[in-house]
């Protein structure tokens, strides 16, 4: 990976971390009494979190029932895998991670209730969870009130920054700008048709996209339409697309609507190998439902694809399939969810404490070199530096990576000129 040549990576911290990580498996081989040498619980937990001499409890809070279950299951699986792996290496500060899983049930108030339960009753040291923006918005006041730490995996609309949240997915500009630049350059895209589901993430994303298209790329937006979540009738908009003949269809249709949208595009005779379509909302998970044959040829802009060719990712994909079955697919958010427990572990070890007030500032500058996406680093604004990649959907439901930004993109949740 070109990441490895970045000068900043050979910092003493990284070396220390690597040495620490290398030494950790050895700890687990020692007899149990050796845990006594781990720091005393009273020193690393001054706020009454669920940390004992041998265990630390974290929460997993996703929807495993309801409409979002199909998307969020991957995140749960990735988080459990990461926790397993960390425990196999000896845990965090000599403590094994135990998790309490709660179901958000695709229902935002339930998310808030369960987050509160995890923080107030179970005193978890961190929560890996939430998926939709709405669930995060519901949970955020709870996290801030009870001073918890949330690792949020989904790419999202930005316009948010909290001491109590680490955003392991991309904020909108990280995902959108590079993809638009690429499509404008390589596909000579001048006119864009924007289609999205009707809620905050697609609307904010499209607002950013429109400003970038009109202001920076000198292109034009030939149409912009939104549909309610769960909408399945896209014929009218497809007819409009056929009439206006945009160079690029730019889509942020989410969830089950995707299935109808791509099938109807195909049925209307729009051949995605000729008509450029760039989406920011379809990962390998969604293709599972859409069917590779319905979407083959379309481009998606993400930070991670299962097909990424690097040693970290090969290891990750193998471990994931070993744990959850050969047929599982791994999408962008699943990978981001996998980062959560790891980043938390490293932050706790850097801070030398589980206290939220200590790990919140310690998060800045945490680097994860074993990330399946290559390499990530936490920005002081609690978002990740990451690359953007464009993949082309294949018949087998995987993406072929056709473009990758040369450098990590700085996260900027409050982008100037795009608001």
């Amino acid at each position, binding site marked *: 990976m070109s990441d490895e040549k970045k000068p900043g990576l050979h910092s003493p911290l990284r070396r220390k971390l690597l040495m620490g990580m290398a030494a950790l498996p050895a700890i687990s081989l020692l007899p149990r009494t050796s845990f006594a040498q781990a720091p005393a619980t009273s020193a690393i937990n001054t706020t009454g979190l669920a940390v004992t001499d041998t265990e630390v409890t974290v929460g997993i809070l996703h929807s495993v029932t309801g409409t979002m279950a199909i998307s969020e299951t991957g995140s749960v699986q990735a988080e459990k895998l990461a926790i397993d792996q960390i425990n196999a290496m000896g845990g965090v500060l000599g403590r094994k991670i135990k998790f309490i899983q*709660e*179901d958000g049930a695709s229902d935002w108030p339930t998310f808030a*209730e369960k987050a509160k*339960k995890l923080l107030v009753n179970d005193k978890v040291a961190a929560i890996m969870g939430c998926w939709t923006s*709405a669930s995060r918005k519901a949970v955020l006041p709870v996290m801030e009130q009870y001073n918890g730490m949330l690792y949020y995996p989904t790419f999202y609309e930005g316009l948010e920054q909290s001491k109590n949240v680490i955003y392991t997915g991309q904020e909108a500009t990280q995902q959108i700008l590079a993809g638009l630049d690429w499509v404008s350059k390589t596909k000579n895209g001048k006119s864009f048709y924007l289609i999205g589901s009707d809620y905050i993430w697609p*609307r904010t994303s499209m*607002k950013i996209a429109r400003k970038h298209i009109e202001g920076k790329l000198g292109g034009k937006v030939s149409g912009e339409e939104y549909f309610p*979540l769960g909408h399945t009738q896209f014929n009218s908009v497809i007819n409009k697309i056929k009439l206006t003949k945009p160079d690029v269809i730019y889509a942020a249709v989410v969830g089950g609507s995707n299935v109808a949208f791509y099938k109807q595009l195909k049925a209307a005779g729009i051949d995605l190998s000729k008509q450029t379509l760039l989406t920011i909302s379809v990962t390998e998970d969604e293709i599972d439902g859409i069917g590779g044959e319905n979407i083959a040829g379309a481009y998606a802009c993400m930070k991670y694809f299962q097909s990424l060719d690097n040693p970290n990712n090969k290891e990750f994909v193998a471990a994931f399939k070993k744990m959850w079955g050969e047929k599982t697919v791994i999408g962008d958010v699943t990978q981001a969810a996998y980062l959560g427990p790891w980043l938390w572990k490293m932050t706790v070890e850097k801070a030398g404490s589980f206290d939220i007030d200590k790990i919140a500032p310690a998060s800045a500058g945490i680097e994860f070199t074993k990330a399946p996406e290559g390499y990530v680093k936490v920005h002081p604004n609690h978002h990740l530096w990451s690359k953007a990649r464009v993949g082309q959907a294949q018949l087998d439901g995987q993406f072929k990576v056709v473009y990758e930004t040369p450098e990590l993109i700085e996260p900027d949740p409050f982008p100037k000129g795009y608001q």
Partner: protein
Amino acid sequence: MINSRFFNRSELLGFLSLLLLLAVILPLFLDVFRLNLVAKYLTYAFVALGLVMCWGYGGILSLGQGVFFGLGGYCMAMFLKLEASSVANTKIQSTPGIPDFMDWNQITALPLFWKPFHSLTLTIIAILVVPTLLAFIIGAAMFKRRVGGVYFAIITQAIAAIATILIIGQQGYTGGINGMTDLRTLNGWDIRTDHAKVILYFFEVFVLFACIIAAQFIRLTKLGRILVAMREQEDRVRFSGYSVANFKIFAFCAAAMFAAIGGAMFTLQIGFMSPSFVGIVPSIEMVIYTAVGGRMSIFGAVYGTLLVNYAKTMLSESFPELWLFGLGGLFIAVVLFFPNGLSGIWRDHVARHIDRLIAMRSSKSKKAWAIKSAADGAPAE
């Protein structure tokens, strides 16, 4: 059977034991987190109470109570949101001083219909009046045309669907699918602290009992009797010269008002409001609470709401991946085996024995009275 007393003996027992449970036992034994959960459950009890009146007594099945619950909740949320969106709190926005979601949607000035919600008095009036007015319009349009039964249920359900789509679609004005989050203070009083939660809980219990007494009062008046008569034989009531439609409209409006009070309480307790309480699914869930509790029983509705929600929380905490099946099983069991819900079980299996016990004890001295009171214990209709 005409009863001169406000509560007969078994109702008094129900009233006092509920009061004991909610005002003494639960606050004593639960920590603040669980008490806050009970407070959340109780907000649905307002809706269930309204449904007992309009469905149990009036025979009008509404599958759209979530709309009124949501309206009450949104009115409250608009007030709290405005208070939380002071210029100082929203400095980072392009237009400070308006709710954050408006800023995200490029709205630069507060819409006109938000303006009254700067005032708490106007907000309280809106909570009580707006949903009732909507219920009146729906009720008048339906009942005057003699639309009833299943058709009415379907229409209320459609209204619930429309309301959800409207709220989600107008996200610049309503917060869309995220709803209104991050509500903080009520006239400067921080509603997020544990202390405030406990005070709000007792306030809610107080309001709930006020509503229970109001419902009981309506039930005992001639109006309540006509409602029951209407449910059993609508035509006969009509031929007796009563305006059936007006009575139905009244019951529906009262149910809407109760639901709205519950919604406003919900916003205060939970600190946010979203369209997920407005749609079809929550509306049907609210009917289920009433069915489990027993749709004829005011107290049953409260117990039913508490039980179903408690089961929901417990099952989902213990079996995050299976709990929906457990809950579904519970509903099927109740509907199959106990069609009159909890209050039916109580009446058939528990109350009878209590009555017999009391009757035996006092039979020697007051035989005549005992027979009368045993009769009172039977269903009130």
